[in-house]
C-alpha cells in the first residue's frame, strides 16, 4: 500500500466528515453521530496501519511557490515520535467519540458537536504529521479554532461564550510570539522544513539563540496553558465533558509538549527558563486545585499541573547530569520523558474526565462535588475506573502514571537543580491529596442532593470507554506495551535503578494511598462543606479565586488597556478616519464624478475617446512620446 495515498486519506476523512455533516446532516443528529464515529473508526484503522506497518514512501506537495525561490510545502514527516502522538490521538479520539454517543445523546446540537470533533481530529492530525513550521502554525490555529467552537457548544450560556472567547484570545497572545519565533527561525536558517532545520542547526549551532527558543516557547505557553497564560484552561471546562477529555486534557493541550519534542534542537538554549515555567505551573496548579469544588475544574487544574511536569521534564532533559553520557541520546532525553508522561497522562486523564462525565451525566449536569456523594453504591464501574485513574495520577506503583512520573523525578534528581527536584517531588504529594479529596467527596458518604440520590450507572457507550481507558491506565506505562514501534522515544528514557527506584516505589505508594487516606480523614465524606474552608477561610478564598490571576488580568484590561484604546480611538477618528480616509475618499469621489461625466452615453463621444487612444499609441509607436 502506498503511504502517500494513506496520508491523503487520513487528512481527507475527518475533513470530509465535517463538511458532509455541516452541509447535509445538520438536523439529522443520530445519522451525523454514527457517520462521524464510523469515519473515526476507519481513520483509526488507517492510522494504526501507518503506525505499526510503516509503509514505504512519504508525501509532500508544493503548496505555494512565491517569487520563484520561496516554496511552501504541505507534507508529512513520520517518525517514532509522530507515531506515538498519533497513537494517543486515535485511542483517546475514538474512545471519546464513542463516549459522546452516550453523553450527547439528547443534545440539541449533536450534529454540530460531531462536526466540530471531526474538524478537531483533522487539525490535530495536521500538527502531528506536519513536516514544516508554517504548516504546524496553520494547524495550530485550526485546533485553536475547533477548541473555540467546541467550548462554545452551549452557546446560550453566557459563561460558555466568554470562556470560548477567553481561550481564543489568550491563545492568540501566545501564538503571536510563536509566529515571531517561526519567522525568526526562517530568518536565521532560511527554511521551514523540520528535517532541513535539524541538519542546519547541527551544522551551525551559532544561529540558535535563547530569544528564538523562548519565542517558540510562547506558543507552547499558550497552547499547553503554562503560567502565566494558564487562565483559559479552567474556564474551557464550560465545553461538553468529552471535549474536556479529548482536547483540554489528552491531545490539544499536549500539542505544545509534542511540538517542543519535535523541534527540541531549536529549544535547547531556552531550556532553563522552560524548566522553571513548568515547575512553577506544576506547583501552582496543584495548590489551587484544593480550592475548587467543581469536579471538572479540579481535573483542569490537575491537567495544568501535569502539563507543568511535562514542560519541566523538557527543560530538565537539557539540565540533567545525564547529559554527560553522550550528545545525541541525551538531547532527546527530556523530550522522550515528556512524551512518555504525555502518553500515560492522556490515558488516565481522559479516563478521569470521562469518568467525571459519567458522573455529571448521571447527576443531570450537576458538577459541584459537594452536591454529589454516595455514588459508589449505584455507579460501581464508574467509581472503580475513576479510582484507578486517581491511583495512576497519584503514582501508585506499577500503574501507568508511576513509570512516567518516576522518570521525570529521576531526571530532576540527576540535575543540578535541587529546588526543582524538591518542588516536583512535593507536588506529587499534593497531587495524591487533592485527587484523594476529589475521589472521597464525590463517591462516598451520603448523597448531598436529589440528583445524586437518583444517580444510576450509565449505558455501555459511556461505560465501555471507561473500562478500556482503565485498562490502559494500568498497562500503559510498561515497555512491552510500546514494543519496539516507538524505539526512538521510549528507548531514550533513562531508567532509575537501585535505591532511587526503591525510594520511588515507596513514595509512590505512600503518596497515592496516603493521599486517599488523608483525604478521607480531612475531607470526611459525611460532611457537607469543605474542611479547608472551615479551617482557613482566607486561604480557601484565595484558592477559589485561583490566586487572583484573572482579577489582575481584568484590572489590566479595564484600567490600562481600555484607556489606551480610548486615546487611540480618538486619534484614529481625528487623523486616520477623518483626514486620511475621508479626505482621500472625497478627492477620489470627485474624480469619479468627472470621469462619469466624460462618459455620457453618446456614441460620438466614444469615438473621440477611441481616436485619442489611437493618436497617443501612434505617437508612442513613432517615437514622438
Amino acid at each position, binding site marked *: 500500500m502506498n503511504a502517500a495515498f494513506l496520508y491523503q486519506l487520513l487528512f481527507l476523512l475527518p475533513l470530509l466528515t465535517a463538511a458532509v455533516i455541516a452541509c447535509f446532516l445538520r438536523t439529522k443528529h443520530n445519522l451525523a453521530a454514527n457517520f462521524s464515529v464510523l469515519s473515526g473508526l476507519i481513520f483509526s484503522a488507517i492510522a494504526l496501519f501507518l503506525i505499526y506497518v510503516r509503509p514505504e514512501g512519504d508525501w509532500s506537495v508544493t503548496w*505555494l511557490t512565491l517569487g*520563484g525561490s520561496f516554496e511552501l510545502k504541505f507534507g508529512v514527516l513520520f517518525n517514532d515520535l509522530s507515531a506515538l502522538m498519533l497513537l494517543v490521538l486515535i485511542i483517546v479520539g475514538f474512545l471519546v467519540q464513542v463516549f459522546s454517543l452516550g453523553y450527547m445523546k439528547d443534545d440539541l446540537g449533536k450534529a454540530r458537536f460531531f462536526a466540530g470533533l471531526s474538524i478537531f481530529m483533522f487539525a490535530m492530525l495536521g500538527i502531528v504529521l506536519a513536516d514544516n513550521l508554517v504548516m504546524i502554525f496553520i494547524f495550530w490555529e485550526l485546533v485553536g479554532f475547533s477548541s473555540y467552537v467546541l467550548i462554545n457548544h452551549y452557546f446560550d450560556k453566557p459563561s460558555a461564550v466568554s470562556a470560548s472567547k477567553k481561550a481564543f484570545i489568550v491563545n492568540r497572545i501566545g501564538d503571536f510570539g510563536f509566529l515571531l519565533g517561526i519567522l525568526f527561525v526562517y530568518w536565521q536558517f532560511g527554511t521551514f522544513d523540520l528535517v532541513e532545520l535539524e541538519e542546519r542547526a547541527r551544522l551551525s549551532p551559532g544561529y540558535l539563540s535563547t530569544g528564538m527558543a523562548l519565542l517558540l516557547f510562547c506558543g507552547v505557553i499558550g497552547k499547553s496553558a503554562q503560567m502565566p497564560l494558564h487562565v483559559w484552561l479552567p474556564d474551557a471546562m464550560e465545553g461538553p465533558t468529552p471535549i474536556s477529555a479529548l482536547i483540554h486534557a489528552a491531545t490539544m493541550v499536549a500539542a505544545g509538549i509534542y511540538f517542543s519534542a519535535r523541534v527540541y534542537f531549536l529549544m535547547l538554549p531556552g531550556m532553563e527558563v522552560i524548566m522553571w515555567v513548568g515547575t512553577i505551573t506544576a506547583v501552582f496548579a496543584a495548590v489551587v486545585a484544593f480550592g475548587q469544588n467543581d469536579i471538572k475544574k479540579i481535573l483542569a487544574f490537575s491537567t495544568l499541573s501535569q502539563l507543568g511536569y511535562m514542560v519541566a521534564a523538557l527543560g530538565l532533559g537539557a539540565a540533567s547530569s545525564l547529559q554527560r553520557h553522550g550528545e545525541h541520546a541525551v538531547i532527546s532525553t527530556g523530550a522522550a520523558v515528556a512524551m512518555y508522561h504525555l502518553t500515560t497522562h492522556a490515558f488516565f486523564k481522559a479516563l478521569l474526565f470521562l469518568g467525571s462525565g459519567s458522573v455529571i451525566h448521571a447527576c443531570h449536569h450537576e458538577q459541584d462535588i459537594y452536591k454529589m456523594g454516595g455514588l459508589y453504591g449505584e455507579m460501581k464501574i464508574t467509581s472503580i475506573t475513576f479510582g484507578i485513574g486517581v491511583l495512576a495520577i497519584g503514582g501508585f506503583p506499577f500503574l501507568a502514571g508511576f513509570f512516567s512520573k518516576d522518570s521525570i523525578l529521576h531526571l530532576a534528581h540527576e540535575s543540578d537543580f535541587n529546588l526543582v527536584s524538591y518542588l516536583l517531588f512535593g507536588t506529587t504529594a499534593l497531587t495524591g491529596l487533592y485527587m484523594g479529596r476529589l475521589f472521597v467527596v464525590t463517591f462516598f458518604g451520603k448523597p448531598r442532593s436529589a440528583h445524586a440520590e437518583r444517580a444510576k450507572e450509565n449505558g455501555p457507550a459511556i461505560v465501555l470507554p471507561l473500562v478500556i481507558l482503565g485498562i490502559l491506565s494500568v498497562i500503559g506505562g510498561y515497555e512491552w506495551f510500546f514494543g519496539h514501534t516507538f524505539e526512538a522515544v521510549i528507548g531514550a528514557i533513562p531508567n532509575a535503578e537501585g535505591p532511587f527506584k526503591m525510594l520511588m516505589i515507596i513514595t509512590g505508594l505512600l503518596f497515592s494511598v496516603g493521599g486517599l487516606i488523608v483525604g478521607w480523614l480531612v475531607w470526611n465524606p459525611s460532611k457537607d462543606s469543605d474542611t479547608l474552608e472551615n479551617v482557613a477561610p482566607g486561604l480557601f478564598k484565595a484558592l477559589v479565586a485561583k490566586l487572583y490571576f484573572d482579577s489582575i488580568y481584568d484590572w489590566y484590561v479595564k484600567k490600562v488597556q481600555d484607556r489606551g484604546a480610548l486615546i487611540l480611538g480618538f486619534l484614529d477618528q481625528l487623523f486616520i478616519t477623518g483626514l486620511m480616509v475621508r479626505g482621500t475618499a472625497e478627492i477620489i469621489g470627485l474624480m469619479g464624478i468627472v*470621469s462619469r461625466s466624460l462618459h455620457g452615453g453618446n456614441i460620438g463621444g*466614444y*469615438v473621440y*475617446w477611441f481616436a*485619442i487612444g489611437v493618436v497617443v499609441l501612434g505617437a*508612442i*509607436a513613432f517615437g514622438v512620446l
Partner: protein
Amino acid sequence: MNYPQLFLTTLPELIVVLGMFVALGFDYTKYKELDPQTRSNKVAALSTIALMLGLAGVVWQFLQVTDGSKTFSNSFNGQVVLTPLTLWFKGLIFVLALFVVQFAKTDVPNKHVSEYFGLILLSTLGMGFLITAQNLIMLFVSIELISLSLYGLTAFQTDKKFSVEAGIKYFTIGGVSSAFLLFGLSYLFGATNELSFEGITAAITSGAAPQNYVLIASAFLVVGLGFKIAAAPFHLWAPDTYQCGPVPVAAWVASGSKIASFFLLVQLFGPVLETSEQKETLIAGIVLVSVLSMVLGNIGALRQSCVKRLLAYSSIAHAGYILIGLVAANEDGSISVLFYAVIYSLATLGAFATIGIIDSRLGREAQIDDFNGTWKQNPGLSILFMIFILSLAGIPPLSGFFGKFYLFMAAIGSQPEIASWSEGFYWLVAVALLMSAVSLFYYVKVLKAFLVSADTPKLPSIQITKAEGAGLLLLAVLVVYLGIYPTGLVEFIAASLG
C-alpha cells in the same frame, strides 16, 4: 488536405455545430407553439448536452495530446493547433459556456429562444477556435465570429430600448476596432510575409522583418485587441453592454471572451515582447493602456449605483491589472496573465450570475440599495456572492489575491537589477496596488449592503433552480480552491508554455 485528420481535430466543434443546428430548429418545429420558458428549458438542455459532448471531445483530445500520440500532429499551418495548453483553455471555455447556458435558461429575453442559445453556442465556437488559432486568417475569422454573435446577443432584449442601443454601440465601436485589427494584421503579414505565429515570431526575432512596420502593426493590434479586452481608452462599449444587455450575456462577454482574448494576447505578443528590438516602445504603449485602464476603471466604478455597471468598470480595471503581466515580458508574466484570466473569469462569471438571478426575480435592474439585508433572507446566495466579490477585490486566501500577486511579482521580477523605485515596474505595481485599495471601497460597499446593512430586506427569499445553485457553488469552490492551491494550475501552465 487530410480529411480524417481535420475531422478528428475539429471534432468538438463539429459536435457543437450540430447541436446549434438542432437548437435553431426548435423555433420552427412543432415546439414553436410552446411558451418561451418551456422551449427555453428544452433548448438549454439540448445545448448542455451538445456542450458536454463537445467537452468530452476536448478531454479526449487532451488525453491524446498529453499521451504524445501523433493523432493531431498536423496543425493546418497553425490554423488549429492542439497542445495541452490550448486544449485545456478550450475545455475551460466549454465549461464556462455550460455555466452560462444554465444561468441563461431561466430568463430568456425574447421569444426567439433558439437563436439566443444558438448565438451562445456560436460564440463558444469562436472562442474555442481563437484559442487554438496560431494563424492570422483563422485569428481574424474567429474574432469576427465571437464579435458578431456577441453583438446580436447584447441587443437580444428587444423589448428594452437600451439593450438594442447597447448592441448598436457595441457593434459600431466593434466595427471600428475590427478595421484597426485587420489593418494591423495586414501590416504584420506585409512585414513578415508569414501567416502562422511561429513564422511571424521567427521573422521578427531574426530581424528579417522591417522593425517600423512591425511597430505600426503592433500599435494597431493593441487598439484592436484593447477593444476586445475592454482596456481604456477603448473600453467605452463595456459599461453600456454589461449594464443593458441580458445579464448572462454580460457574464459571457466578461468571462469567456476575455479569456480567449488574453490567451491570444499572450500567444501573439509574448514572444515578440521578449525578443524584439522595439520591445521598449511596445511595452511603453501597453503600460499606458494598462495604467489608463486601472485608473479609469476603478475611479469610474466608485460612484456607480447600478451593480452591473459597477462590475463593468471593475472589469476594465482588471484588464489593466492583467496587462501588467504582459509588460513583464517574460515567461512568469505570461503564466501570470493566463492564470489571472482564468480566475478572473470564474469570479466575474459568478458575480454576474448572482446579479442576474437577483435581477430576474426583482424584475428590474438591481441597484446597490436593493441588496440591503439580503443576508437575512438568502444566506447561501450572499455567501457565494461574497466569495466572488472578495476574490475580485483580491483578498487572501481567495484566488484573486494570488492572481494579483503573481502578476505583480512577474512585473517586479522582470528587471531584477534596478537602482531606484522609479525604474523598472515598481511604480507600475505601486499604481496597481493603490488602485486595488481604491477598488476595495466599491467592492466592500456592495458587500456591506448584502451583509451588514440593518434595513429590512427588500428582496424576498429567492428560490434558485438546481442548475443555477450547482453552477454558483461549483464556481465558488473553484475560486476558493485555486486560492488555496494555485500551484497546480500555475505549474501546468508553466510546463505547457515552456
